[in-house]
């Protein structure tokens, strides 16, 4: 598989006043492949946007080379680059009196003539792009009247109509509600897989990225960029290491970030069930330290879950109690703790 974008010893950053360069990342050697969706992850200020801006040709690389389809990016004219890479930026422009159709039609701009008149083929491509993005019903709506998620889809449709092998999106899932986030990622994945595009997007939705990305690029301040498929990065612990931060840590077993807020006593839980997973989450949320086996500390509450039964059972050395749901159990635990401190 040959790459469509390749960097050689690239340095990205920006120029400060008086011509001094601030390098955010150096010695970058990365590749993007067609038919893959790549998620760029990293905390704020790690240089995700700078990398995407450099890839898009909005700002020059400080040193090194960036090749797109085997040709250095600075050898492209603006109009040539427009046919190779399409971008979707974080902020949507505020345009009054513009229909969704006209907005998507901008994607044909690199191909149309002097006055930008659309040919029949152009109109077909625009329709197709709107259909793929699932916004064909919105085509006569005014762009400014759309919701954030719909606007995002309009710009993705614009990028699709641009018919570029590369697509860069800067935080396309920011400010969206959860279903819209998933929809956008599904749309991007379909575009990458079915239209053989190389899609690169930055995002803060780590859990979604783990589920949708073919490749993940991890960025951090003062850290080299690490790449790989999601599962490998999780197992090697790299995924966690780029986001570990005081009380936050990545729990490999459950595949989510946990907030280390254990303030209360430890609880041992047994059983194997969906209910157990959620019980663990609930206990963790309430600040209990959840253990799998009993350790030397005898003051630990032992908790076992009977798979056969509907109820949750709380066992201690002396007695056992059953609860209808997690909420009741939590109330009981809180009261027990209250009495102890008294």
């Amino acid at each position, binding site marked *: 598989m040959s790459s469509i974008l390749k960097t050689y010893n690239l340095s990205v950053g920006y120029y400060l006043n008086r011509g001094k360069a601030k390098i955010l990342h150096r010695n970058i050697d990365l590749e993007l492949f067609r038919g893959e969706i790549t998620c760029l992850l990293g905390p704020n200020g790690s240089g995700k946007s700078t990398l995407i801006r450099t890839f898009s040709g909005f700002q020059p690389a400080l040193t090194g080379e960036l090749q797109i389809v085997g040709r250095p990016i600075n050898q492209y004219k*603006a109009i040539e680059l427009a046919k190779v890479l*399409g971008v979707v*930026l974080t902020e949507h422009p505020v*345009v009054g*009196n513009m229909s969704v159709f006209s907005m998507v039609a*901008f994607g044909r701009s690199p191909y149309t003539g002097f006055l930008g008149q659309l040919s029949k083929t152009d109109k077909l491509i625009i329709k197709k792009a709107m259909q793929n993005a699932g916004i064909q019903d919105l085509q006569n709506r005014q762009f400014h009247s759309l919701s954030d998620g719909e606007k995002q889809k309009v710009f993705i449709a614009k990028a699709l109509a641009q018919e570029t092998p590369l697509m860069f999106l800067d935080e396309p899932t920011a400010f969206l509600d959860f279903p819209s986030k998933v929809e956008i990622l599904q749309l991007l994945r379909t575009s990458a897989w079915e239209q053989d595009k190389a899609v690169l997007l930055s995002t803060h939705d780590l859990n979604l990225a783990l589920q949708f990305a073919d490749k993940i690029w991890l960025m951090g301040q003062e850290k080299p960029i690490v790449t790989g498929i999601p599962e490998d990065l999780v197992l090697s612990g790299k995924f966690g290491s780029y986001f570990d931060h005081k009380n936050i840590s990545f729990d490999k077993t459950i595949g989510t970030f946990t907030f280390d807020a254990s303030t209360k006593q430890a609880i041992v839980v047994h059983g194997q069930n969906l209910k157990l997973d959620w019980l663990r989450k609930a206990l963790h949320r309430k600040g209990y330290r959840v253990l799998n086996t009993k350790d030397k500390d005898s003051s630990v509450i032992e908790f076992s879950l009977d798979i056969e039964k509907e109820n949750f059972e709380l066992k201690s050395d002396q007695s056992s109690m059953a609860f209808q749901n997690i909420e009741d159990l939590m109330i009981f635990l809180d009261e027990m703790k209250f009495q102890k401190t008294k």
Partner: protein
Amino acid sequence: MTISTNDISKDNGHYWIKMGIIVLLGAIFFILNIAMGSVFIPVKEFFKIIFGMGSENPAWSSIVINSRFPQAVTALLAGAALGAGGLMMQTLFRNPLAGPSVLGVSSGASLGVAIMILFVSVPVGNINMFSQLAGNFSIVLAAIAGAVLVLLLIGMLAGRFKNNTVVLVMGIMIAYAVSAIVGVLQFYSLKEDLQTFVMWGLGSFANVSSNQLRHFTFVIIIGLLLTLMFSKPLNALLLGENYAQNLGVNTKKIRIILILITGLLTAVVTAYCGPIAFLGLAVPHLSRNFFKTSNHLINIPGVILIGGLMALICNLIARLPGYDGALPINAITSIMGAPVVIWIIIKRTDFRADV
């Protein structure tokens, strides 16, 4: 898959009808501009004179050919040029309140003119000779230089400060500073020069003689045609500079070209007619609201037609008191333009919106 291109062609249909309405109104006001005034000229006579058949009254013929016809054409072209300049500025700076008079471009042109009239003291015999002065090539060039200089400055600021309000305030400050320099020049200038300059500053479409009209028309039409040629990149710029670049627009080059065209249009009008307030700011909004689109392919012809129409209306109102050139054009355009600005602010809660 059904391709509903019908709705789009239907759109084009209603654009043509709307354009037709404005052309019709423009023609009516053009004729009224020539017919009405201190001397009323019957419409029939007017057509006779225009088509070179002469008139029963030679005085009428003289008034039409030497005074009212050039004035009406000047108003038409000046309004069109200011509208186009305002539209380009609003798109370029992504600011609904941008306009030649607001961002100090007219002031820049005024500075050029002031330096020529007051400082270099381009010889002027008296005010009656003013029309010769206005035709003076050096003054037009100085006006263009001043306008482009201010535009470049604003362009730099707009590139650096993304906040529209900041750029707007800076533009107004530049306008003040430039006006202050003009004030200083006025302080040190001769009485006669000063009078010439003040008269020029009030604004008038009557200062272009039949001879100069040819040059004026030529330059303005070139400028307007150039504007039309850049409707595609102007449309792309509606999405902001980055999107425009990603759509294949060489934004740096286009920016400079648009600034030069805007400078040319605004400065030539300012040099010949004085700094005309508000027209350039208000006309693009009237066009966008009338045609209900942000597409420059529609709005450029739109601002040309509406700008011409508005200027003709203003010119007619200015002459209502009964004798030629009675009221300064600026008084009329301000009275009509200021409410438009207030309307824009009331209507748009989002200051960045609707360019």
